[in-house]
């Protein structure tokens, strides 16, 4: 027996504001609501209000987790906060969250900036903290408000992204087998320009604020807004995800048939169906649900884990593959055991 990290609990939170396909169809006259659903698999996105930040969504998710009595704030000895929409350049949002969640002052707290691969990265960091004896209970919060980066006239990204957060408790347990891992990581910064908010940081600040048309489309944005080259991101995904899956199987010494369930970053329905097909995974073993919430970036995987567990799709003893991929480019894959 050895000290192993495992996922003890997950609690997700979506803001109350919504954006439906009907609303999008009204705004963009030539689009039909059912067509948007057919392509994206999304019926409703949840959108943070003007004064609601990623940190607020993260606090709500964490409070729900504490209310379930699985763990108290005083038991947390490390907080990892994954976001690309922090409250401030400084201080670290995790420090603000330590106070708001009433975590101990001898609790470690750090932000890390990752997008769609962020949850799997967070698991790797949490596992390392737990299995080196550095921490016993790690609170991993993924939270994102991409809506604040999105130009209202950019329909290509407005249809896809929703805001949301998840609080995941990674704790230690004595176990014979590893419960999280192995990990595969991947990075290719050549893709940085394909999914980016160009202005607002140090490289390009202040923003010009000039509105430009995106390609031949009817979408518009400024350099302060999120830009996504959908076709190029799709190319990246088709190249990268099957390779990451093969590397994960090779590293774990398992055959694909030994994996009970597959949860990929819920990017959009079209992409996920292509990936499922390419990976030759049966629909019964593959999570695909963006209906409520859409693409919440770093929180799609924990939200899917929570939902799949409630729906009885994954159960105690199951070995589940998790793969996150996107902005960066960055990707990460791992296996976990449900206990």
């Amino acid at each position, binding site marked *: 027996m050895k000290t192993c990290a495992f996922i003890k609990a997950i609690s997700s939170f979506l803001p109350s504001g919504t954006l439906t396909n009907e609303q999008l169809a009204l705004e963009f006259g030539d689009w039909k609501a059912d067509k948007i659903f057919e392509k994206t698999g999304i019926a409703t996105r949840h959108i943070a209000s003007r004064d609601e930040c990623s940190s607020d969504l993260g606090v709500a998710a964490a409070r729900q987790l504490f209310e379930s009595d699985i763990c108290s704030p005083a038991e947390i000895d490390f907080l990892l906060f994954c976001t690309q929409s922090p409250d401030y350049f400084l201080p670290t949002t995790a420090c603000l969250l330590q106070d708001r969640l009433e975590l101990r002052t001898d609790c470690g707290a750090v932000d890390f900036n990752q997008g769609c691969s962020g949850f799997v990265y967070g698991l790797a960091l949490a596992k390392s903290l737990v299995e080196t004896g550095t921490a016993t209970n790690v609170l991993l919060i993924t939270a994102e408000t991409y809506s604040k980066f999105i130009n209202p006239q950019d329909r290509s990204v407005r249809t896809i992204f929703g805001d949301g957060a998840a609080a995941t408790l990674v704790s230690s347990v004595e176990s014979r087998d590893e419960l999280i891992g192995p990990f595969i990581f991947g990075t290719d910064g050549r893709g940085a320009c394909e999914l980016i908010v160009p202005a607002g940081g140090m490289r390009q600040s202040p923003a010009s604020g000039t509105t430009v048309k995106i390609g*031949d489309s009817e979408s518009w944005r400024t350099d302060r807004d999120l830009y996504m080259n959908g076709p*190029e991101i*799709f*190319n990246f995904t*088709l190249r990268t995800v099957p390779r990451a899956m093969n590397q994960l199987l090779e590293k774990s010494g398992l055959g694909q048939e030994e994996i009970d369930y597959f949860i990929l970053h819920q990017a959009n329905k*079209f992409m996920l169906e*292509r990936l499922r097909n*390419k990976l030759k995974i049966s629909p019964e073993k593959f999570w695909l649900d963006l209906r409520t919430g859409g693409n919440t970036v770093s929180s799609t995987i924990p939200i899917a884990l929570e939902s799949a567990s409630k729906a009885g799709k994954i159960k105690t003893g199951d070995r589940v593959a998790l793969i996150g991929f996107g902005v960066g480019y960055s990707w990460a894959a791992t296996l976990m055991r449900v206990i």
Partner: protein
Amino acid sequence: MDREAFIIEIADALNMSQDEISEETLLNADNWDSVAQLAAIAAIDERFSITIPSKALAEVRSVGELLNLVERNITQQSAGAQ
């Protein structure tokens, strides 16, 4: 490459019937938006296991040009693999 067979698959991506589409079919902002390009990328990947750079894909102006682009990439990527 069987151009005729592939045109039929591309018809789906363009939301056109097989009778309507030919190599002369023009691609423009109305029928060659990012959704159509995603569908084309999927069809090309499924049939040929190659990816086409999105910029080149966005610039083709007819189905015939698209087929030429795919053929060029099949040649390049198979040469690169050897």
